[in-house]
């Protein structure tokens, strides 16, 4: 025999809360889709390097921006893969304007080495003058992506052992 459904206050409140969450979810999806469309068409707009560099040159190093905790996992900023540290917001804005964060995070260099890369990108790859932002960006890179001494040949690492049938 089946129980007749009952609607006491507690259950009704739960039901209402659930429905509200679902509506919020749908709204969020619409917002994301809408925003993606805007960004997509925005990409199609003509490129304007001059204006871009002017805007960036006007900015000055700001106070350290707090990264929301939910975006940090084991000290890594999950949307980009960058290590969390001072001035990360500036690094994201500058370094991922053209290329992937992966191009940064796979490299290692001293402060001087990172400076050389910036100069190379300015001379050949349309990178703008970083102005006051250069020093904090260089400090971040040298601190978090500095070189490790590996010698002329490292031992084999991260070996995943498996049984090989003859």
């Amino acid at each position, binding site marked *: 025999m089946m129980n007749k459904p009952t609607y006491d206050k507690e259950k009704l409140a739960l039901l209402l809360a659930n429905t509200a969450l679902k509506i919020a979810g749908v709204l969020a999806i619409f917002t994301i889709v809408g925003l993606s469309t805007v960004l997509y068409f925005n990409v199609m707009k003509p490129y304007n390097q001059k*204006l871009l560099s002017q805007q960036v040159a006007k900015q000055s190093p700001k106070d350290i921006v707090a990264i929301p905790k939910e975006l940090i996992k084991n000290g890594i900023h999950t949307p980009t893969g960058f290590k969390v540290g001072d001035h990360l917001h500036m690094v994201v804005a500058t370094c991922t304007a053209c290329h992937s964060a992966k191009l940064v995070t796979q490299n290692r260099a001293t402060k001087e080495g990172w400076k050389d890369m910036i100069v190379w990108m300015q001379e050949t790859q349309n990178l703008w003058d970083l102005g006051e932002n250069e020093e904090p960006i260089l400090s971040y890179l040298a601190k978090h992506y500095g070189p490790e001494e590996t010698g002329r040949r490292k031992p084999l690492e991260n070996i995943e052992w498996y049984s090989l049938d003859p």
Partner: protein
Amino acid sequence: MQSRRTFITKATATYLGTLLGAEIVFANRLMEGIVPVALSNQDDPYSLKGKSKGLTLLNDKPINAETPVHLLDDKTTPNDLFFVRNNGIPPTEINLDKWSLTIDGEAANKTINFTLKELKEKFKQYSYQLVLECGGNGRSEFSPPAKGNQWTLGAVGCALWTGVRLKDVLEYVGYSSEATYIGYYGKDTHVSGDPDKVVISRGVPMNKALEEHSLIAWKMNNEDIPLHNGYPLRLVFGGWPASTSGKWLKRISIRDRIHDGPKMTGQSYRVPCKPVAPGTKVDNEDMCIIESMPVKSLITYPKTGAMIGINDSLNIRGHAWAGELEVGKMEYSIDFGATWENCVLENPPNKYAWQQFEASIRFPKTGYYEVWARATDTQNQQQPMILPGWNPRGYLNNACHRIAVKVQ
């Protein structure tokens, strides 16, 4: 009235706010048409179109992906496993009927446009197995580190390429005695979004261009070339840095000087003309263009980490290649180079193809071993066991490949 731009700025700022907890500073940059990769759709199937999920993605803008060594086991590398080295963004709209190849330049007798159909009809077609290896393959091992994509071992592949000889096309157009170099131009676009900026334009000297194995190709392993490997048309120069083999080919200039396009000059694809100590800063004028790639080999079977019994034989196999030369000898060592044993080595099917090797190994007692492989070219140059000469950009690492084995 609220302009569209203001709306975009606010919307973008809000979105970035959620993403980074950061300020409107980002939106100022974004509205000029740049989307940080963090915001781009990384699951877009277009991003690695035609490629296996087994590839290791080093960089997603521009896309650079290498093949894990154990997936390079085939005699010719399948299209979906062939590595990707993009300097820019591949073309998105490709119309085969309208695609044309222009031959021009100071030393060309005239300027001629060929449609794909004309290229296929006017000239005899050839197929060769040719090795393409990125000049920076192995860069990740350099110390002090060298800038760029940190390739480990798999920025190399050998496919069957079909097309026409560059030589036949150049001779059809005609060139003067001043002809020195050819330089290519492709239809990819620069990551900065600047539509007028040439991404990469390299090339080879005339004597390399006129070799019978130098192709303008449209087929790879009898199929269309994958988008990321240059669809619908590319150059293929076996044995030289793969960056000489221009992708999405639209123009070849016959130059009266050494070609001077982006990434021909400065420090790109160049090494110090004279050896330098690790970490040395080298002036541009002391850097020389890389030509032939050095002798090298890979053990493609078994995958590193194999555990076998003391009574088992370990059968290994792989490929060896030597730039413009052939591999004359292939050896392995299980005692860190104290002694070497010969592998069985096959002849190449044609010049610039890689050669297969194999060996069957017995181990004297249980324990940890490394199997090292070493190729020697026909001019007696061997792969070094440690890193070869350091260079600022981390090119030409042809140190021996090794795999770990446990015998129980």
